């Protein structure tokens, strides 16, 4: 099971400021190991954020995103105490969902 994300969601006036750290190898599929074998691609392809049953952000990612990515965005319509859920899916069929309360 993948490691948990570190998520912070804070009200900044009208908008919710979200900062996420994800634990992921983000292998591009272009690297070779010490024996010359290609390290298979393994990266996050999809990130979605859900608040009150509504998708507030969705992103399509590729192999150029850094290892252990840091991701930040803002959205309107959230309030203190609401739950925000973040999900990622990767090329190996792995997925992880974590939830935080907006404060």
């Amino acid at each position: 099971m993948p490691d948990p994300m570190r998520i912070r969601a804070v009200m900044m006036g009208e908008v919710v400021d979200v900062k996420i750290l994800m634990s992921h190898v983000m292998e591009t599929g272009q690297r070779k190991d010490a024996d010359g074998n290609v390290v298979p691609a393994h990266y996050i392809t999809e990130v979605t954020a859900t608040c009150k049953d509504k998708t507030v952000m969705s992103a399509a990612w590729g192999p150029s995103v850094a290892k252990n990515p840091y991701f930040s965005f803002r959205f309107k319509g959230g309030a203190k105490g609401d739950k925000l859920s973040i999900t990622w899916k990767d090329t190996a069929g792995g997925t992880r969902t974590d939830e935080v309360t907006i404060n």
Partner: protein
Amino acid sequence: MALPARSTSSLIASLLLALSLPLAAEQTSEEAIAEYHAMFGDENPAELWQLRGEELWKTPRGPREVSLEACDLGKGPGVITGAYAELPRWFEDTGKVQDLESRLVTCMTTLQGLPESEVFAIKFGDGERKSDLEALTAYVVAASRGSRISIPLDHPAEKAAYALGESVFFYRAGPHDFACATCHSESGKRIRLQTLPQLTTKEGAQAAYTRWPAYRVSQGELRTMEWRLQDCFRQQRLPQLKYGSDVAIGLTLYLARKAEGGEMVAPSIKR
């Protein structure tokens, strides 16, 4: 008169070039690195290691099914606040001067009953091969943020370890006839664009020591002092530095003492 589109754009391009060149030249590599670090702000993937380390610290593990919460890092069982700022230190129970990493090994083998081979299976993590030692170190070190380094060298064994560390720091060896001091005892030395800290001065030692362990962006891994020292040995083409050895701990103690009074900010983030 209207200029043809192509020459207008090339004119703009050459103007931009002329403007940007002197600006770029004015920014030193250190300023550029500082700017790069500022872009991360408080966000540091080291937190992912801290989270995993906290889990490892609090979860009962090993044949004895106990957590590490009874582990004594020098300030009493389970006390981690400020513990790293006072390490390495003498431990009565093992009769040794230990750094954080070797002390964690002691706790994992004696308290939890984990075999040493398992504890040492992954000393330095690589992607999916995660190191428990690095995660635990990150968690414990973060609890010393804001604490001041205090290495009183009260015990004779601590004085001896310091003397060993000092002698190794200045000992020239290997095919390059290098010592730690070759690169780290003068100001303004660098490897490529990386300015090297002058570890023989208080300011230099504090600036360096208080920022390790660190998340290394170029490796995508959190690295501890044990890693930093063994990589310095590799760069000098010296024999491999043994994890938790007297030399590794002596050098760490020497550097910590040089950084006495410095305020811990680690785990930090490095290029």
